[in-house]
């Protein structure tokens, strides 16, 4: 896979965060599209996501040139990893396949140090961003609209995805905040997440 393609992997919980995880990947890809980039965003079929709390992945890819890897359904070397539920770092090697200099975004009310002690391969990271999305937006929206080609009645980024996307801009330069604001529904939460995110460079 060409190195120009930037791969973003989102880890979330099955069913309860299915829409949130998809909104993060889709919102990121849509915002990058507004900047004239080539993008892809898709779910993972391997994870069997229709069970409550099962760890699952959503993927996004951003590139300056046309993405030719159409038939690869997994991000082998993610540059940015987003963890939508902090307890996932204990159960999964979330940085698998990452090359040195990646960024980790975690939705948690804890400090970055508390998360890092559960990540043994933390030397791969360039920075870690922590944001309390649950504190900003409340509980995750349990909703299936927009899944499997259905009509998205709730709207993209109405829930927890908005502050996480805002925090992502603090740690990376993948997209600009104003392009995300044009895509995301809950703009107030997006800006709040951008302000309240805690960035720790390693």
């Amino acid at each position: 896979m060409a190195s120009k393609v930037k791969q973003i992997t989102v880890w979330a919980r099955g069913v309860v965060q299915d829409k949130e995880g998809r909104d993060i990947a889709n919102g990121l890809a849509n915002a990058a599209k507004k900047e004239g980039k080539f993008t892809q965003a898709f779910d993972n079929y391997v994870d069997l996501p229709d069970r409550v709390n099962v760890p699952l992945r959503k993927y996004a890819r951003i590139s300056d040139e046309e993405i030719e890897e159409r038939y690869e359904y997994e991000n082998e070397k993610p540059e940015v990893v987003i963890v939508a539920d902090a307890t996932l770092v204990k159960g999964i090697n979330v940085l698998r396949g990452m090359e040195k200099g990646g960024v980790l975004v975690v939705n948690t009310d804890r400090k970055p140090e508390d998360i890092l002690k559960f990540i043994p391969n933390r030397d791969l990271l360039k920075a870690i961003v922590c944001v309390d999305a649950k504190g900003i937006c409340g509980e995750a929206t349990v909703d299936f609209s927009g899944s499997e080609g259905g009509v998205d009645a709730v709207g993209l980024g109405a829930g927890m995805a908005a502050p996480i996307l805002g925090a992502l801009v603090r740690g990376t330069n993948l997209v600009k905040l104003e392009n995300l604001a044009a895509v995301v529904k809950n703009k107030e939460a997006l800006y709040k997440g951008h302000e309240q995110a805690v960035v720790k460079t390693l």
Partner: protein
Amino acid sequence: MFIIPKEKEVPLGCITPAPVTEQPMMITGNWREYRPVIEQEKCNLCMNCIVYCPDACWQLNEVEDEVVWNAKYCKGCLICVNECTTEALSKAYELDFEDGVVRLEKPF
């Protein structure tokens, strides 16, 4: 008459014996957000947690005379917390604990 060999006989009442080995292909410890925590002083060994746990994550330690929790397979459904008669079980957030780390390479 059709004779079933002795080793293939189904137990009385067709109940299969309890699983004695772990299932390494289906580790579900990473599904957990909250975990049950037991206070052994309050526990009166009513065995409700053992009966109600869907994954047999509560086992009776007959030597110590106490119930033991299995961190590797507990999904954090908290049914045991609901069914506990003496309020010996309570839920606690997973990141408060150093142990219980599963860290699989892939979800499955």
